[in-house]
């Protein structure tokens, strides 16, 4: 259980789980009444009493969604009317979004908050940090560190932060005061993602251009963990069973490890060699996993990754680069597309509705 007042669905027996999921689905459909986007497509909102009721639920549970907009199809170099990009935050389940930080283009790839509330952004300009909920920011890195694609915070020690960059892996152990390059043992420095093992935070995985690498000493030394020579785009871990690991590949679907990264097995049934940019397991059900693909939109597995089925109805852009599932209500799923903005599903991915950021490149979504 991740929250003391929650009972995880996976803990329940199957008939009860079906009833609970159905009830949640019905509730979510009732509660969410989508309106047309407002404010030039930048904001979507839930209207009426239902909306405020839902907002109270999500706010009470303290769920914050961080959406990183890299750019927009509307963006033109030097144009006077470029859309606002960068970090958007929602504390009401995606009903409203609020911009934080710089409004211009600095290539905001991904944003994540640590358990102490510090917000970290992976950007072209380096690793940015805010300790006041996004009111002000500091670029914690210097000129040596650039093109940061992901930033991941240690789940138990928020002063330890990793950055996945085009030039390798960087780590700070003092909350961004100093950074060290940690490429020892990496075959290819280009790293799309890092994953800190939730069960054992000294163990870190890296998604590189030449396979998955693992370190058992917080990045001091790396060794190949699998998929030698293959481009890895993203890594994910099941919340309920930390031994379940997922990796998205370039043109070769998903690979899964059930033993904490010792062995990796391809899971391509139904994926047709898709490039996988995003993976998010349902935080309440280990058998349900969503992936975001290039050209195919969202695929979903309800059998632990054995088979995959396209789940993109309503998506008007099928290049899905980021995904998020609301832990308090796993029927609510977010899909960030490249040049199509943010979509939300209230029925576990069966149907999607446009949510926010018209024509935006939603590079990253994280929820805390």
């Amino acid at each position, binding site marked *: 259980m991740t929250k003391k007042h929650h009972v995880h669905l996976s803990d329940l027996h199957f008939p009860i789980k079906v009833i609970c999921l159905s009830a949640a689905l019905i509730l979510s459909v009732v509660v969410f009444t989508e309106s047309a986007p407002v404010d030039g497509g930048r904001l979507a909102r839930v209207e009426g009493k239902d909306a405020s009721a839902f907002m109270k639920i999500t706010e009470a549970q303290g769920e914050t969604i961080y959406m990183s907009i*890299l*750019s927009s*199809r509307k*963006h*033109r*170099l*030097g*144009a*006077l*009317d*470029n859309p606002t990009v960068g970090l958007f935050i929602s504390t009401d389940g995606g009903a409203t979004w609020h911009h934080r930080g*710089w*409004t*211009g*283009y*600095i*290539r905001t790839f991904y944003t994540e908050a640590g358990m102490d509330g510090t917000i970290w952004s992976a950007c*072209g*300009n*380096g690793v940015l940090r805010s300790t006041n909920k996004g009111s*002000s*920011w*500091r*670029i914690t890195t*210097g*000129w040596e560190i*650039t*093109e940061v*694609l992901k930033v991941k915070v240690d789940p138990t020690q928020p002063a330890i932060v990793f950055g996945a*960059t*085009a*030039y390798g892996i960087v780590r700070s152990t003092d909350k961004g005061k100093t950074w060290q390059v940690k490429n020892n043992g990496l075959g*290819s*420095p*280009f790293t799309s993602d890092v994953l800190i093992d939730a069960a054992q935070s000294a163990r870190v995985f890296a998604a590189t*251009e030449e396979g998955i690498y693992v370190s058992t000493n917080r990045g001091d030394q790396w060794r190949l963990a699998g998929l030698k020579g293959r481009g890895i*785009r993203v890594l994910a871990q099941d919340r309920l069973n930390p031994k379940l690991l997922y990796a998205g590949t*370039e043109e070769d679907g998903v690979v899964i490890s059930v033993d904490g990264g010792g062995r990796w097995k391809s899971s391509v049934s139904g994926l047709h060699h898709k*490039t996988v*940019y995003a993976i998010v397991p349902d935080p309440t059900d280990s058998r349900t996993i969503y992936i975001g693909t*290039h*050209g195919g939109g969202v695929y979903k597995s309800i059998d632990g990754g054995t088979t995959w089925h396209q789940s993109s109805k309503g998506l008007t852009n099928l*290049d899905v*680069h980021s995904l998020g599932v609301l832990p308090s209500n796993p029927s609510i799923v977010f899909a960030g597309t*490249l040049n199509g903005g943010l979509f939300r599903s209230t029925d576990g991915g069966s149907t999607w509705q446009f949510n926010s950021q018209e024509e935006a490149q939603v590079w990253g979504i994280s929820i805390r």
Partner: protein
Amino acid sequence: MKTVLLVVAFVAGVMDVSSAQRSFEERREKILVVASSERDRGFATITAKLLTGQDLPFAFAMLDSLTYDQSIGGMFYAYTLIGCYLHGEHVLPDTLKRKMREAYRVRTMYRGDTENHWVMYYTGLYLAAQTWPNEDEARWFNGKSSEENFEEARGWLNHWFDISSTIGQGEFDSPTYITTFLTPMLVLYEFAKDPAMKTKAQLMLDLLFVDFAAEHLAGNYGGGHSRDYPEDIINPLAAPSTFWAWLYFGQPETPPWNETRYRPRHRSAWEPVFGAASSYRLPDIIYHIATNRSKPYVHTETKRVRNIIRFGKEKNPPVYKYSYVTKNYILGSLHGGILQPIQQHTWDVTYVSDKPNNTIFTLHPFSSGKELAMFFPEEQKFLSDEVDRYHNVYTNPNKWNSSSPYEQTLQHKNALIVLYDIEEGTTHSHVDGFFPKTLDERIVDASGWIFARSGNTFVGIFPLKKYEWKEEDVNWRLRSFERRNGFVVEVGSSDEDGSFENFRTTLMKRRPRARDKGKHWEVKYRTRGGHVLQLTFNGKRIIDGQQVDFKQYKFFNGPYVQSERGSGVITLTYGGKRRILDFKRGRITETP
């Protein structure tokens, strides 16, 4: 009258100039006057107004709007804002000064992802932090203090000076992007308080200018280029480098704003104002290197590939560059392959002409998401589309700039072989050739040679495979759909060959020998000068029986510029004089 007096007073304030460049002072005065009469909203023209005192209310209004408009930010803003501020500090109202200072707190200052971006960003940050010292992190856009920003900028600038003087620039010899290096360095030279930094800026200016000068011809930037825009590739005097050539080399003689081939209102058009405003003076020796074309010469260079972040074994592999410079033309080439994404220009012959489109070249219009992903961290399946949004022609089969893994060259003096071996399945599998309509003569000869003449320059091109012609607005396009392909090129002139007829007659008797068998694609050719060139695709390059060893290429090697790779010391020689640019020691010496 007031304006003239101000300009004269300003001119009188700068250092002495040599007789060879006396006309520079006239040009710099002219550009300040002309630019200050422009009514656009650009930091360069505003700076001209602040320096001359002309049209100050308009300048202040434009500056105010530039500080107010939050949509403008990033590196292009960072260095021009501070350059304008420092040049105009004496006349700027305090309210405007405060607004300009505030810009460094509230704006999005994107650092960018190219060499020129970083030069602009860190030069701006260095001078801003120097101008407003001892301010805490809340006063800066990036949450760092003045001291932190100053140190970071200093650190990167010194890093850039080091790599640029040892393994070369990644965005080398660009007729367009030269502005984005020259202007920041001119501003840095003018205002850096640290004598060491000022000297480094001077060293870098000397290096940038001599790099241009050695391949300069009558305003044209000859040879291969890392990056250039198609419209400038097919019309060399349209490039921004022409403006710099006019100001510092005195060529072409016509001011760019009066020259129809130049478009003074395009990208960064008026930035040479910052040169006119600077006390930096081009050393005589560089001026002579740029303008003395009494004898033909071979000039070679080693540059570097832009940072490769994946799909490559080396971060910055070397680029080998060869140019043959005469008073009539420059035949120049890069050795081939992917050396820069998007805007590479591998080879051409550019000749002196009073007509536009004074160039001939061929290319393979390659595009690939994987190529872009070598240099950009975004997803490879997404990059082609994204780059097309900014560089509209990237995936266009008719584009005139390209880097291709299927293109290789071999050049010796005025002869060149370019071979193509295009992999099956490549998006565009044809090769194109650019032949301008402004040629005086274009003859498709039964011998297989295509002959072209413009004034005193003669060009012979022998296509190795069948091709077709297509007439376009300003050119004939030669197109061949043979994937294994190539051209032999010879360039001559009235000085070398007497008449065009002699040139043609000599070449008609010559025929390249091609060997196209299995994986082997090779051509061998004896030039009219008697040299035997042999190029095997992905194989040896042989000249007169000797294999070309690129490892022997120096950083600079020519009659005027010499440097060993990695040394950080560049020696300029001309007419018994020597100027040594010593980046390692941070000093310049000139003898006698």
